[in-house]
């Protein structure tokens, strides 16, 4: 027997709901997984460093030629990189973990009116990172020890793209962790759109507000 248009609609809806859940879980995995990966890379070039120096920012701390960069930076009175963003680093696993968890939980909990919330929370991670990194870069270029051998005018290090400090050419670009987090946000955006399409045809559309009465998958029909 041929399925009725209503049955066809239900089948489509169930599939779509599953897609939303799958996308959200994948997004949470991207966000969570990014914690293990480098988020930003700074490279410094000078004649006496033919291979360049690199600084790799992880959410948990900095890696690469940290000691060497600190040693050079002390000449202009910059604080040690080890002293930057202590709170953020210490809390990074909570921040990332809770973000990923919130994304998953909201997939089931959020109702029609809050379908976008998971995406916005997810977006908070890369966006917050960029803002925080920019803040600490600003701070490191401005909060200089005035007893340092070399007195520089406070400056804003280049956070993305090419820059120049003293004899150093600098180059800063997002790294794989950042891109993974952005991928997570893009997946969440797609999930949000798909959810909106599902909610539009949902039988409980009218009773739905901030929370989904049937946890997205527990369809009433």
């Amino acid at each position, binding site marked *: 027997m041929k399925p009725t248009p209503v049955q066809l609609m239900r089948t489509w809806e169930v599939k779509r709901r599953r897609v939303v859940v799958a996308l959200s879980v994948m997004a949470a995995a991207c966000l969570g997984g990014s914690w293990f990966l480098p988020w930003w890379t700074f490279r410094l070039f000078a004649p006496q460093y033919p291979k360049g120096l690199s600084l790799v920012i992880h959410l948990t701390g900095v890696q690469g030629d940290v*000691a*060497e960069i600190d*040693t050079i930076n*002390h*000449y202009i009175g910059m604080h040690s990189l080890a002293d930057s963003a202590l709170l953020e680093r210490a809390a990074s696993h909570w921040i990332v973990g809770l973000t990923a968890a919130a994304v998953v939980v909201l997939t089931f909990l959020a109702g029609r009116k809050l379908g976008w919330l998971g995406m916005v929370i997810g977006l908070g991670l890369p966006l917050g990172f960029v803002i925080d990194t920019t803040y600490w870069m600003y701070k490191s270029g401005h909060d200089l020890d005035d007893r340092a*051998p070399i007195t520089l005018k406070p400056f804003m290090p280049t956070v993305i793209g090419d820059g120049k400090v003293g004899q150093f050419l600098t180059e800063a670009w997002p790294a794989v962790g950042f891109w993974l987090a952005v991928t997570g946000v893009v997946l969440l955006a797609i999930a949000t759109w798909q959810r909106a399409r599902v909610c539009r045809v949902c039988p409980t559309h009218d009773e739905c507000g901030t929370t989904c009465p049937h946890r997205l998958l527990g369809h009433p029909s």
Partner: protein
Amino acid sequence: MLVPSLLLFFASCQNAGAPTAPAPTAGTGGGLASIMAERGLSEADVLAAAKTYTPTGKLDDYVIFGSGGHGGNIVVIGVPSMRILKYISVFGPEPWQGYGYGGLGDDVLYEQGKQGGKEITWGDVHHPNLSETGGEYDGNFLFLNDKANARVAVIDLKDFMTKQIVANPLVMSDHGGAFVTPNTDYVVETSQYAAPLGGKFATLDKYETEYRGAAVFWKFDKVKGRIDQENSWAIELPPYAQDLADAGKLVSDGYVFINSWNSEMSAGTEGKDKPFTESGASQNDMDYLHVIDWKKAETLVAAGKTTTINGIRVISLADAAAEHVLTFVGEPKSPHGCDVTPDGTAVVVGGKLDTHATIYDIAKMQDLIAKGTFTGKDKFGVDIMDFQASIRGQKELGLGPLHTVYDEKGFAYTSVFLDSTVVKWNWKNLEEPIEALGVQYNIGHITAAEGDTISPDGKYVVAMNKMSQDRYVNVGPLLPQSFQLIDISGPTMKVIYDMPIPLGEPHYSQMMKADKLHTITAYTPAGTNPYTDTKSEFAVASGEEKIVRNGKKVDVYMSVIRSHFTPDNIEVNEGDEVTLHLTSMEQALDQTHGFAIDMYNVNVSMEPGKYEEITFVADRAGVFPFYCTEFCSALHLEMMGYLLVKPNGA
């Protein structure tokens, strides 16, 4: 690319008159021709330049470890550029490396280096030998003998530093050594001038009865990277002036061959009407090539058939002879050179007063020993094999053939001293004619690329000449010695570079593929003691620097980083015993500091991450600046501090 383009250039020059030939371009072509004309360079000269010139940023393919002779050090040279890459100080103090000026190296140089309780600060180094694994250089260690004071040094190639000196407790001079067995189980050091063993006294009329030589088998601990003196042993040898030596390899692994030149047992004039040693030791037509079965010797040592002399277990000459640990075969008089072929089947011996190289067949000798076929015994009861029955043949090479090295194609290259030539010959086919290349002048040793391994590379041979005479601007009357790089890749040999060696008489060298090195760039973690390879318990972390006073003893825990010492002011009292514990906090490539205290004869080198320790008595009161002696940074001059030594009673 340069060589083909040069050839094209020459081709185009020859055609320059022809109407079809393109006019030389105004760029490099014309420039090169005018430089050649101006400097009087031939095509061969320009080709030699192209084969050796190494533009900035390009690295050499091979590294030579050359003996610095009585300079007591090693010269490290890149091939083909022949650029000096480093000197490694071994038996003498050297301030750049901070060796012997107050730091941890003082223990190696002044304590371990003592012979018979005497401090000795020079050496006459002859034969550097690289450590081997399976008969191939492994790039881990370098061993070096000091002929004058019978010592052997261990250089760690991880950081090109002398890590150990062992003093031979038996003999008063060495020559055959330091060479290694194919897996570096032993570093062998054999005597040269005979003397009573263990530093005892005996008059020269007792030369035959009391004077002896010895072959010391230093056990090498590959894990620790040090000679294990406890587990080393020796074989007593007759007083025949043992000379050069080599270890068997592959089929002949387990044997050591040593030539000798004083079967006459001449001890010179002895204050009587006897001839000088030069004549006295040159009377017999034959001397003795010593054939040592060291694996059998090991079993005697294990069985306890040894006598301990001056702390080392020695197999007696009588036991060595009786057990065939030692057998002899004649060799033409005043032999020199003793070089086992890459396949381990033969050993080639030259002769200072002969025109031939003799090729001994090791299998034939093994057979003679196994069957007990001997022609007689020497005065000490050592069995002698028949010369003709032991050899594959002899090859006439010229006047005074000395040392032989090998290539990958089956050719041997022998240095011929009196003729001043390098002679290329086929050691597998003695009928083949030789090729002789004149070198300048009086060639002694010779080295070839990986030439002492089971798989030589060919390509390059270096003639190590005792005289340079007119080759360089006269800086005499003491003139440098001279290395000549010889290209052996073509059908004929060509000298392609002359390099003066102005720091001692180079003897032997070895040439290793540069990519076999695994040199570190920093000591990691910071605070690593290079002599223990572990982080020193006295190393400091940044922020934990301190000065600890305990009576008259002052310990300073200092960090070293661009461009400051922490602490930078040290105040002590006259007569205090001061120990400085220095930790370099650096890890970056080439970021070396120095630490010198003015007027206190203190200077150490602080490579990245290194721990150093300087102990001295502050016996001169006053104010003594200390500073960094390696130009480390823009603020290098400011990297300084003061040692204040308060006068007593002040």
